[in-house]
């Protein structure tokens, strides 16, 4: 898509910018079908093993760092708020608000990654890193380690997706917005990034009870 800040034209296969924006949104939702099933398959393995090894999971999961997971939950949900407010600002021509809200979104995302990194360090201390430094807790059978296999794969993949999301927002800020390509007339690329961002948040909505709320009672 090329254009100065003054005039943006649709690509040759589109009749109008409106059609182009609509189709971009549809495209992202189609992509989310794929992402839903990708994470859903992983959660299926969790569901299977938790159902049949619930005792071992209850014991193994006690070492999940509840405060880290919860802080991260709050950070991500807040970032979804700042993202949607940024899109509103873009649509209403409030350029400075849009930029600051997007910066806040990136900051919240980076804070998430920071907390996660610290949590990984605590996990190492708690000896719940399979292969590297793992010790089964008293009463935990061999199936308990399945919980931690899931933990590392799931949080790792989520962190990768979040990093991609941060990259996309930075791309919007440093490339598209700087060149004036996000205007009230056409802000679909930002909407599309916002949809992806909130989806990454959605994944955490499901990972959170899987990891942090097991065997707490």
């Amino acid at each position, binding site marked *: 898509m090329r254009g100065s800040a003054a005039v943006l034209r649709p690509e040759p296969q589109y009749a109008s910018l409106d059609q182009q924006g*609509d189709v971009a*949104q*549809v495209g992202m*939702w*189609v992509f*989310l*079908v*794929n*992402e*839903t*099933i990708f994470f*859903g*398959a992983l959660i*299926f393995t969790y*569901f*299977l093993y*938790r159902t*049949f*090894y619930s005792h071992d999971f209850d014991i193994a999961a006690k070492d999940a760092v*509840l405060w880290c997971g*919860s802080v991260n*939950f*709050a950070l991500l*949900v*807040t970032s*979804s*708020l700042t*993202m*949607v*407010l940024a*899109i*509103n600002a*873009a*649509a*209403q021509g409030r350029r400075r608000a849009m930029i600051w809200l997007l910066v806040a979104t990136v900051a919240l995302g980076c804070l998430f990654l920071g907390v996660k990194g610290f949590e990984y360090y605590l996990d190492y201390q708690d000896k719940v890193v399979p292969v590297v430094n793992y010790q089964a807790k008293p009463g935990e*059978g*061999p*199936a308990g380690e399945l919980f931690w296999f899931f933990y590392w794969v799931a949080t790792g993949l989520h962190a990768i997706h979040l990093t991609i999301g941060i990259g996309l927002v930075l791309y919007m800020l440093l490339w598209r917005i700087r060149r004036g390509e996000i205007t*009230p007339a056409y*802000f679909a690329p930002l*909407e599309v990034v*916002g*949809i992806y961002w*909130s*989806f990454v*948040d*959605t994944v955490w*909505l*499901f990972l*959170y*009870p899987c990891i942090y*709320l*097991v065997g*707490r*009672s």
Partner: protein
Amino acid sequence: MTMETDPRRARALPFVLWWLILLALFGASIVVAFLSLGRLAPIIQFGIAAIQTAVLFILFMRLKGPPSLKWVFAVSGFFWLLFLFGLSMTDYSNRQGWPLTHYAKRL
């Protein structure tokens, strides 16, 4: 509460209120974990996650707005997962020798 779907006219306040609701639900989920609800706890917690997902999808990701085609795709992913969960459980729910109770020693 009907929310404005067009970003050009949307106000911030409704989104802030829904954000607070999401956080409240999140708090409830934690509380449920510490009550002794047994097998009911994860059902409630994933139910809360489903509600939060609906809020995020419909309001924050603007599923409510045009084009309405988005709904088909938003729902399809979850629908397809039913096939995986449901049909796999026809095996796991009644397979002899599952779950593994005697962990094999690796040769």
